[in-house]
């Protein structure tokens, strides 16, 4: 199925109309979601966040819920390549292609390896979100000057809280990936 066909199928306007299925007293609609280049048919409740659908209905548990309200970045995913917080995104409104950590790890194993080489993770619970954010960041070019590059990296990753590493290893991973010489 082509991407445009998928987009047109999922680009719909939802109304409360008779005939919509009420399940567990929740209004839900049948949707097709494209996650990591795979199409999934899912029942999406209007209350369902993208995070909940990814984890509980599609079964990809790499995306984590740490705060559930947009504070920490652990649930970061890409929608059409743009980093978003899946815990604050109503799934029914998502029309783009979703990429989760599972997809990023497949496409950019070098980011995962860099995290392993540079102490970019410890407990790993924030790591999915960190790596997804890094994947988005690396689509852009960083300044050549290492100090300026570090400044940009730290600013861009400030939406991803890490309580273990003190960020040094994460920043080092990104600078190494970007070719920065530290």
């Amino acid at each position, binding site marked *: 199925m082509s991407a445009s066909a998928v987009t047109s199928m999922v680009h719909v*306007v*939802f109304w409360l109309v008779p005939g919509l299925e009420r399940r*567990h*007293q*929740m*209004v839900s609609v049948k949707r097709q979601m494209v996650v990591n280049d795979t199409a999934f048919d899912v029942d999406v409740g*209007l*209350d369902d966040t993208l995070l909940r659908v990814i*984890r*509980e209905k599609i079964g*990809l*548990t*790499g*995306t*984590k*819920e*740490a*705060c*559930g*309200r*947009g*504070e*920490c970045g*652990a649930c*970061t995913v890409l929608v059409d390549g743009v*980093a978003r*917080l899946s815990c*604050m995104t*109503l799934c*029914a*409104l998502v*029309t783009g292609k979703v990429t989760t950590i*599972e997809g990023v*790890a497949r496409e950019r194993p070098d980011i*995962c*390896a860099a995290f*392993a080489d540079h*102490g970019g*993770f*410890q*407990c*790993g*619970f*924030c*790591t999915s979100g960190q790596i997804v*954010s890094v994947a988005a960041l690396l689509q852009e070019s960083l300044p050549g000057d290492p100090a300026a590059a570090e400044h940009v990296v*730290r*600013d861009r*990753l*400030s*939406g991803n*809280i890490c*309580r*273990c*590493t*003190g*960020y*040094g*290893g994460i*920043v080092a991973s990104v600078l190494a990936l970007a070719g920065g010489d530290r």
Partner: protein
Amino acid sequence: MTGTLGRHVRPIDWQQRTSGAARYTADLFIAESLTVRVVRSPHAYAAVRSIDTAKAATMPGVHAIITIADFPPGARYIHEGARDRPPLAEGMVRYVGQEIAAVAAETAEQAAAAADAVVVSYDRKRGPLTIAAAQGAWSAALHKRTNGKNISKSLHRSWGEPLQGSSDGVSVDGRFVFSRQTHASMEPNSIIAQWDAEQGCLHLWVSTQAPIFVRDEVAQILGLAKEQVVCHEVFVGGGFGSKSRISEHEVIAAALALKVKRPVRLVLDRNEEFETTKSRHAFHMELALHADASGHMRAITGRFQVDNGAYDHSGMSVTSAGMKGLGLIYRPRSIRLDAQLIDTATLPGGQFRGYGTTQVTFALESLMDELAGRLERDPIDLRLQNANRDGEETLIGARPRTVRLADCLIAARDAIGWDKLRNTRPAGHGVGIASGVHLSGSYAERDDANRSDAAIDMLTNGKVRLRFGGADTGTGQRTMLAQIVAGELGLALDDVDVMTMDTALTPFDLGAWSSRGTHYSGHAARLVAKTATKKLESLAQGRVLPIGDLVALSNEAVDGMLTVEASFVETAVQRPDPKTGLGNVSASYNFAAHAAHVKVDTRTGKVELIDYVAVHDVGTPLNPAAVHGQIVGGAAMGIGAALGEDLVFEQGKLVTTGYTYYALPRAADIPSIRSFIVNCADPLGPYGAKGVGELGINPPPPAIANAVADAIGVRIRELPITPDKIVTALARKEGRNRHFNIWRRPDRWWIAFVRWAYPLGLFRLLHAWRTHQPSRSVPPEIEELAAPASLDEALSSLDRGAVPMGGGTDLLLRRSQMLSTATRLVSLAGIADLSQIAIAEDGAVTIGSAVSLSRLCAPSATHPAVAAAAQSIASHQIRNMATIAGNLLQANRCWFYRNGFECYQRVGAKAPCYAILGDHRFYHAAIDGHRCQAVTPSDMATALTALDATIHIRGRHGTRTLPIRALYTGPGQTVLQDGEVIAAITLPAAARTRVGAFRKLNLWHGDFAIGSVAITCRIDEAGCWHDPRIVCGALAPVPWRAVETEKALAGRKVTAALLRAALDEELNAKAHPLARNAWKLDALAGLCEQAVEEINEKVGR
């Protein structure tokens, strides 16, 4: 060392932890699972008269509700032996958030709805909420105690020579406060429990550092044999001490699993995680150092008051550990300490990385600098003179074999560039040093604390598996153990697997706490690997064969697996004498020196960390990358405690219940911490290694406090060192005062009267008789969600109570905070017409209301001041989602209003404003505060007001255009009517000719403003300012323009000093600050000065 030991290797689980494949507890979805929701006390101190579960029990999806009646009579946690805490409230509740009942239902929503429907009847009492209140003559006694009212325990320690009066010495003393810090582990406490009736076995998957403690507590409370409770291996997402004992939720999940005979899952939400995770104990410390004239330390004396919270957990051992820490860094001849553990009706304290030594190190190391000052000595020289040394028995009975503190101090001095910085530092810069000590696993007051076992299974395929009973919460312990086994057996690291946590399948270990992992599990792994080697050698009989072949030869192998076990017992340690505390409680002790270079913005009070060096004596590092990770991670956490982290309570209820309000460091808040390891090999450590997990957190608070004192000449003795403390201290030092002359301002008399009456009883009256919000922990379901393609379509659907939504980052949050009950949402984010930025021929810029903040971050997109404001907001992800109109229209961010306080703004007139007497230092108004003290939080509003933006509003009945200053009517409140939306924002053509600057002060990178400033003007060729706009955000209920100052500056060449003089006059004439936020006026004036300088720099003047 053998194999990969001492070398950096990738963590053995790196692929799982970086690809999303690692399964943490909440990632396990067991079929037929029910979800648990806990009913918690909203009161700090109350008698529970009755609990009525009848209605809740009949609600859809509900399978069971438990209360204390479901537990055996007298069920209590063991913890430190006090046995004062029941698994669910029994008779009394003693803190907000205490567990009263728990519901298991089919879905999370059903469980929450049923939990809301449990009716608990309370007899509210006034509980002691602070240390001071607990000691008041009229305060209630929280528990029956034998040491005195609200004194859980007292501890007196006296080590060394008796104190001698001497006149030739020098003494320094001070009163220090280490506030409450919380772990904020990224993974919330999570439990899955399943009862296997056939086997009579309770299976638990728990996010824990110490499965054995979980097993023991669950078994004893539920009356099961220990063997009937089995913890299974899961990935664990951080602990930092919080998970080294039971979290008090495992028992609840287990009891429900037993009752419903189905698997249950209990995953705390972030509110609960903050509200119920036992925090670091707050220490109030009076400490004194006594030295002779040559700088030799004679004595340390002190008195500590420790906030125990509502129940005894580890308060006494934390206090005791802290006291011992004072006897390890230096060589005093005498130590005399007294401590009281004080009961308060607040969240109990618990285990936290550093365990008491963090708190006392702050006081000790701050005083060391004061002592150096009094003696006119270099702080590092004084420390070197007194530093503990190898081979000496300390006053507390510790016998460290290796002490490399002096090496650490010297290395830190060199790395930070101490001498140069001390001699030639620019204004506002400062450098500070601090030492620290920790141990490698304390011989805690329990049996077998000096023992760790391990087992190795060798398979015919040549692979081996180490089994060990602790838990790796992210420290890299599994990798280190695999390195040891691989090294000893001559295997590749890939051939070694490590199984942890499973209490049925792994041998005895007490878990990951007290920095014991390296020493105890390292020795156990070494021992069992050597046992395996011997076994293999006996099988080989001189032949050289692969391990798999040797296993095949063994007649002891079972199903192709040969197993050996070993038990390591550390004989070099002693249990401390209960009377004196004396004893060598650890096999080795690790030392550190940290140096901090800070820059203090004396105008705003913001402390910027320029450079940070951490030098540690950890013995021989077995996996250097992991060791550096522990050091840097610990230091970052210590920096958080130094500069921002603080649990704030009001009426016993936690105010800072989330990452937004808890200022822990984000990536941009700290520099790259430079970590170094000094040469050392401890004879008692495994391969020379010592523990490392905790120490990194201890030196940062005093190192930074010392650097700040060095920079500004004022010492801050109460953590965290937030901008308010610095600005206030500097104003006091410089003798600056503001006078507001409210008596000459009749328009403020009523407010002044109400504020005066609040502490005299008005607050208590309103608090007691306030309107209550219906109990509700999940918002009503969304019934309708429209994503129209045009604005007209959107407007037609905005009827019958439907609300417009931009990026949803505030509306969805407000729904979860029970501040919005909207069930019909109309998303405007997908409307193409609203997502344009259009530039008219005359230069006017029209920004569609659905333009994301990200697009506004480019300075060329609209105006540099708008870009600067956009860049300062929240995070990259939020900026991608949030729209400009959503930012303008967000509700106020008062931390009382947002976090569940039934305040005036939330429930109406018959309720108090909690900010008036509560903590209002940062996010509340200092000008024009009325019934509600909140401010409009939008930074966009600040910037756009300074550019004379106009707002285009569309409704079903027409269109109107307003200047932005007419948009706001109160804190986060606007003139928008139901059914109206902002369609666009226009920057007039004249805005393009304005030079502008935006400045913001906040607690962490991306936080809401404590204060923000936007200044714009036109500057003529002579350098004179025309038509200036000076707008302050977060200072008043609405964006506040300094109109008098604008008038005073018009037509003049403006300097920072000129602006400051005019602005101070206007602020003094108009401000009406609360008791503790007048400092914001100084900080805002400082931001204005900086903005003027930025503008002048831009135009080259």
